[in-house]
Each structure stands twice: as C-alpha cells, then as structure tokens.
C-alpha cells in the first residue's frame, strides 16, 4: 500500500521523474495562454501560488518543467522555488496524471472496512495498478491518506467529488460509468448541476450526527452572536471568550481568549484571522460536518474574532480533500457579503473584514499553524521557526490568529449565550462541549457532541462499540488505550484530543495499526528537521521487523530510545507526537511486543534468516546450499 517506505525504496529504482520530465515536450501556445490567464487571475501574486498550481494541475493534469518556468516568470520567482512547492503537495504532480484521478483512502479504517477488495476491483475494471495512469491518459489510480470519511469507509475521491461506502459491485458501476464518458459528478446525481451546493455535499457524504449537544449541533439562531459582538467593544469580546474557558479544539488546547488578546496587543496596521479547516488527523471528520451544517456559524465566529482583534483579512484554509465543499463555502461567503455581514462596514459599523477560501493540496502537516500559514503564503507547508509566534508575526509577518473550525463556532455561540453558559458545561479546565469523530468497530460511527469529562466507556456504549479491545483517542498522534483504561475521561487533563475516537475490536492486529500510523507520519513529515524526517522512517522499519518476526529483544529498548530522541529534538508537533502510537502501545499492550521478539540462542541472532537471505542466489545459481540445505549438510 502507499506507505512511504515503499516510496523511499521506489525512488531508488525509478529515475527521478523531474529528470525525465525536463527533457519532455515544449509548452504549447494555448497551454501557455491558459497558464498566463490563471496567473493573471490572482494578479501574478507569488503568495497565491497554491491557487495557481491547483488550477494548472486541474487544467493540464500535471506541472511540467516548462510550466513551472512560466509560472515562475509570471510570479517573479525562480523555477526551483516553484518546483519546491509542486513537489511538496501530494495533489500536485510532476508527471502527467489522468483526466480523472481516483484517490483511494488508505486509512487503516478503510482497509479494515474492505478497501483491499475495492482497490482490486478498481484495478480489474480499469486495467491499471494503484499508482499507475492508463495509457490513454483517461484515468489515474492512487492511494491517499485519510480523507476524513472514516464513518463511511471505504471511501475515495474521484477528481473533486467523493464516493463513500464503496463495494466491489459499486466500483464496477463507477468504472463503467466513467468509461462510458460520464463525469464524476454524474456518479452522484444526473441532476448534479441543478442541485444546491448543500444538496451536492450531502448527496456525497452523510453527516452521521449521532448526538447533538448544547452548543453546535442543536438548532442555532442565525447571527445572534455577531449581533451581540457588534454592540460590544473588542476588549469586552475578548473578556467574554476568556471567561468562557474556551480552549482550542484542534488538539493543542491553547486558551482562545489569550490567543486573541496577544494578537490584539501586537502592534500592526493589519491583522489576520485564519480558520484551520485542514483536519487531517486519521479518524477525524468533525470539521467536515460543521463546514457542511454550520458554515454560517463558522464565518460568524471568524467575523467576531476579527472584530475582537481588529483584523481586516480572513483566510479559510480548507484541506484539499474537502474540495467538494468549496462551492458550499463560496456560496455562504457570497451570501454574507450580499447581506452586509462580510466586506466593508459590517453590520453598519466601521468594521471591514473579508475572507478568502484557500484550498490545500494534500499535506497533513498544513494542520500545524505555522505550516498552514506557509501554505497560505504560497510556500511548501513547512512549519515556521518560533518565536516569533503567529499572534505577533504570522501570515506575511502580520499578527495572525489561527483557530480551528470548531473553536470559531463555539466562539460565536459563546457571544450569543454568554460566557457563563459555556463555562458551566464540562468541568474545571475543560469547559463546554466537544465534537467527537467516532469510527471503526462500532454500530454507530459518526459525530457525537458531548460535554467534556465523559469516559471512553460511556462513549463506547453510546456508539455501540462495547466489544472494543483498543481505542485510539486522538487518532494516529494520540493515545492508544486498552480495555483496562476505558474509564479514563475525554478532557484536557486526561485524554486530550482534537476529537478522533477510533475503535478496534479484538480481531484487529495492533502492530498492523501501529505500522500504518508510522507509515502515515513518514508520508506526511515535511522533512525540514532531521529527527522527524529520518527518525520516523527508522521507527516504521523497526515496527516492520516486529511484524515480520525479525525483532531482537533489545529492539523494544531501541523503539523507546529512538522515540525519545525524535520527541525531544523535533521542530514541530508532528515529530513530537509521531512516536505516540508506538510508545502508547508499548505501554498499554506490552505483551504484543514481547510475544514477537526472537531471543538469540548461543548469541546467534534468531532474527537473521539465512534461508531467505540465500533464496534468490539459490534460484539464480540453480543449485542448493552445501552448507544450509539439509540434503547436503547431513
């Protein structure tokens, strides 16, 4: 499957694609004109490089060296700078892709839900292997990490639309329809173009709201929070948020009011509000539901934040995997502009604020706020050196507030209902409600909005996951717990999480899950710093040794030791949490590791398998070993 380990070894035997491409065809004149128009659309602004490259990728299906040169010339950059961006994002390609690109979700939940059979069905129906493009350039088939549809796995993207709950039979229909010339949109509905953006989204993806809580998924009034905020001073808004106890819902849990206060206090002529809708943590999909069902509340929250800190510019950074929500969000933004709720003089006050939608292009790291800002600036998604922190110098050096989708939504509700109302929910240090994305081995996967402080056991009971043997709280970078810890609570002071609750029953192979998570981090590391770029590859390889029964007893200490170095020396949160699947399973499932190691006999390593080491030579030489084959040695 698409583990980056494969990619690494794969890079050995293939020639560098950029080298091949460099010798390829010259740019055609009509292509050059279209690219020039795309660049001109954003004023040849290098900071809009993501928009340029996404549009060129959609148009030409790849970004060749002469295309990179043309874009570089238009934007005033060097070709290597453009190549740095193109080669960073998974959805941008330096080799020609098919007119239709099918991306199969490779998450562990999708695998357990039957993705291998779905992938095989696609391969059979299309006549290509995963990772290939058909000779006629019609279709490409590839794997992609979690696309945020774990509650309706196995799922896939077909260009800009998504298909869920795939089966081999459905795959056969899909392939036949595409081969018959239908558009991906036609797979959803033959009246796709006549549907509203919201209907288009919900025809593709179910919301699966299993429990609506008091803050976000209950019925919410339109605009009440913003209305109150417009009557308050900016300082008063920040006080209200601080008093509510709201903490960031993207995982780190920083106090939202404090963040706003820092940004408001930073000296600057312009300030920026960014919404982080790049939820890429395997098993997390709550923001997808908010973006679908509460987009106005989200924009309202961003507008309130802008009012509080004095920001004029807003960016909503939507992960590339959620491109199917683009029209829905654009419609909401336009509607609010039309109603005077965005743009100049909001609510009749002296308050200007507008938001642009920035799409990502397949990079988990862009969920890290510095990397997200880099991406918004048109750069590879690399985290920034801290200090300075974004609240003082963020997007283009301006004071910037970056908050999660859920955080902004809560902020809007707090302004409507009051700080005390929010503070009274949950418990000390963890106030309000939280959305949990529940998936895996349970009867009712979906979204649960619950006050903080619930136990894992209670949530499992609600979701019909009582036979769980392991739960990954917080997804890949979170904590993997065993049955004896199901009484632990979901809160900042115990199991802190952005909301992913991934359930595994006793039939699942823990080491397979851990290996998948490590391959995910290897694939998604930006590669900027040594420990995360290299160390995670070694962790992945070490787990592979355990799975293959080739681990020595001292390899358990090796895992702990290497994990410690990665955590302590990595530059951002990806590296400081990527060893978690290993460390938490070593702690909570120690017997699984102990049972797979091979102790040495006579200090000769049982983990070295001479038979497999000489097997290829045996075939090549067409003779057996005079030392290690029994018929000779006896």
């Amino acid at each position: 499957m698409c583990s980056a380990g494969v990619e690494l070894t794969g890079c050995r035997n293939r020639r560098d694609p950029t080298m091949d491409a460099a010798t390829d065809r010259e740019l055609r004149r009509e292509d050059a004109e279209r690219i020039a128009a795309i660049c001109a659309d954003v004023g040849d602004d290098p900071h809009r490089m993501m928009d340029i490259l996404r549009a060129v990728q959609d148009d030409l299906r790849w970004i060749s060296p002469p295309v990179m040169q043309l874009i570089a010339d238009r934007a005033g950059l060097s070709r290597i700078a453009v190549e740095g961006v193109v080669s960073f994002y998974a959805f941008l390609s330096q080799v020609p892709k098919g007119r239709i690109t099918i991306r199969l979700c490779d998450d562990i939940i999708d695998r357990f839900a039957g993705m291998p059979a779905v992938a095989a069905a696609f391969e059979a129906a299309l006549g290509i292997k995963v990772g290939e493009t058909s000779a006629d350039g019609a279709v490409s088939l590839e794997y992609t990490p979690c696309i945020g549809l774990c509650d309706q796995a196995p799922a896939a993207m077909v260009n800009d639309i998504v298909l869920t709950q795939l089966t081999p039979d459905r795959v056969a229909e899909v392939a036949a329809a595409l081969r018959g010339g239908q558009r991906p949109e036609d797979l959803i509905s033959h009246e796709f173009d006549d549907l509203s953006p919201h209907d288009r989204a919900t025809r593709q993806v179910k919301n699966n709201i299993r429990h609506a809580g008091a803050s976000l998924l209950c019925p919410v009034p339109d605009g009440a929070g913003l209305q109150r905020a417009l009557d308050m001073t900016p300082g008063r808004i920040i006080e209200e948020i601080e008093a509510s106890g709201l903490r960031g819902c993207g995982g780190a849990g920083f106090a939202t009011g404090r963040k706003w206060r820092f940004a408001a206090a930073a000296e600057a002529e312009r300030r920026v509000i960014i919404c982080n809708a790049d939820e890429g943590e395997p098993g997390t999909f709550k923001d997808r539901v908010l973006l679908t069902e509460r987009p106005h509340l989200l924009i309202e929250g961003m507008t309130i934040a802008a009012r509080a800190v004095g920001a004029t510019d807003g960016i909503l950074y939507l992960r590339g995997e959620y491109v199917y929500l683009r029209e829905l969000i654009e419609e909401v933004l336009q509607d609010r502009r039309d109603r005077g709720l965005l743009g100049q003089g909001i609510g009749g006050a002296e308050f200007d604020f507008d938001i642009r939608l920035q799409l990502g292009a397949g990079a988990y790291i862009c969920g890290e706020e510095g990397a997200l800002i880099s991406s918004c600036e048109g750069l590879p998604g690399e985290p920034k050196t801290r200090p300075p922190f974004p609240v003082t110098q963020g997007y283009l050096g301006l004071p910037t507030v970056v908050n999660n989708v859920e955080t902004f939504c809560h902020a809007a509700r707090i302004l409507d209902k009051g700080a005390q109302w929010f503070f009274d929910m949950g418990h000390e240090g963890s106030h309000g409600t939280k959305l949990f994305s529940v998936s895996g081995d349970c009867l009712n996967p979906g979204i649960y909005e619950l006050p903080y402080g619930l136990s894992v056991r209670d949530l499992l009971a609600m979701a019909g996951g009582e036979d769980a043997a392991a739960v990954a709280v917080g997804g890949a970078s979170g904590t993997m717990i065993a049955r004896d810890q199901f009484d632990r609570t979901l809160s900042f002071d115990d199991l802190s999480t952005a909301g992913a609750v991934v359930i595994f029953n006793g039939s699942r192979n823990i080491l397979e899950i851990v290996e998948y998570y490590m391959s995910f981090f290897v694939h998604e590391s930006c590669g900027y710093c040594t420990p995360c770029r290299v160390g995670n590859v070694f962790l992945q390889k070490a787990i592979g040794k355990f799975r293959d029964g080739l681990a020595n007893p001292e390899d358990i200490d090796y895992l702990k030791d290497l994990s410690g170095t990665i955590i302590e020396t990595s530059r951002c949160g990806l590296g400081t949490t990527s060893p978690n699947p290993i460390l938490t399973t070593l702690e909570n499932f120690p017997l699984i590791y102990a049972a797979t190691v091979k102790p040495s006999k006579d200090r000769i390593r049982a983990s070295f398998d001479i038979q497999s080491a000489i097997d290829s030579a045996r075939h090549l030489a067409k003779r057996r070993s005079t030392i290690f084959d029994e018929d000779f040695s006896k």
Partner: protein
Amino acid sequence: MTGFTFTIDGVEVAAKDGQTIMEAADAAGIYIPRLCDHEGLRHQGSCRVCTVKAGGRSVAACTQPAQAGQAVENETPHITKLRRDLVEMLFHEGNHLCPICEASGNCELQAMAYRLDMTQPTKFPYLDPCRALDASHPDIALDTNRCITCGRCIRASQEIDGKGVFGYVGRGINRRVAVNGADLSDTDAEVTDFAISKEVCPVGCIIRKGEGFSIPIGEREFDKSLIGHKIEGKKRD
C-alpha cells in the same frame, strides 16, 4: 543596545538583546555543535544538532533567542546523546562511505561524529539512496547521496552570491537539495561561487572537480583538531 547575561553549562555568558543562544555562545568562545548553521547565513534550525536545554525545554540554539538569567545546558551527557542520535541518523540517511569519500578528514558530519564520541554509525538501518550523480558542469559535480539537506548551499547562493542556484524539493524523507534547472550545467553556478566553496558544503556532496584527495591523511582539517576548535580557540585569545 542593552545586554544581559545567562549561563551555558554554568558559565556566565553576555548577550545582547535579540541574540540567539548560539550567537552569544560563539561570541563567548563556547562551541555549540551545529551542521546546518553557518556564520553569515540566515539561521535555519533544521539539523537540530544544536539542540540545547533552555528553561527545561529542548530548543535549537541557532534560532532560540537567549533570555536573561536562563540556565542553558549544552554539553551534558543527555544532550550529547541526542546529538549523537541526530548525527547518526544523517549517516544512515545518505551514503556516507568515509574511506572512498574525498571529503573524509575535512567533513563536518564525520568530525561531528568524532566530537560526539561515536565509534561508528551502526545504530539504524541504512537507507541506501541511489540518486543520479550530476557531473554535467565542467568544474562542479553534485552527489546528493551524500547530502544532509542542511541547505547551506541554498542560503549561500541566495544570500551571498545573489543567485539561487539551489533549492529544496520534495517532502519528508524524499526532501533533498536540487538545482534551478535540468541539471547543474543548466544553471548559472560557477566554481568561484561562495555556495560552491569548500566552506559551505559540510560533506562531500558539492564536489569541485580536480581537487579531491589533494591533502594527505594526517594533515586534513579534522585529523589535527576537533570540530569547533576555531570558536573554542577564541576563548583563549
């Protein structure tokens, strides 16, 4: 400009406002090991070899501002162990066969291993990359299998030469240094560029043709002295 003091391994060090821990340490003649940082180039903080403990947290000394009164740990056994792991990772990531490398003896990666008392890089599996050599340029060759992605050449070319010959491409373990063109001969690189000088590439990745193995074993830079000696030498002056 006002100043303050802090300590590195118990030694009091003077610093100016806005200085990083490493800048203040360098000025005081205290060496903090580093690979991606180079005097005169923008700090990048990517190799993490300059990791120190400051205020109880591990930070990169090259980018972390010094703070008044802070106690910084530099060459403690724990920090040295972390650095050894990082240097060892770099050895295993690329192809670093010292006996056949013309940088041997002048190589900062190798010298750093010596300083950190690494007997031999054996801790991790070798990743054995096999990237094509770029020998297209008449005076310069590029073996990125030896690249440790420190990016010193990228910054040197941009900031000192005003050119932009090099840049990063790729992500994760596939991140590497590439050139602004189809190959090196397709760029405006010249052997007289600062980016190409032996001061910039810490390993044997950027090769000046016709120069290899000109200094006999025993007389190369790190045959005679430990890496960091130039900075530590300042202390005695």
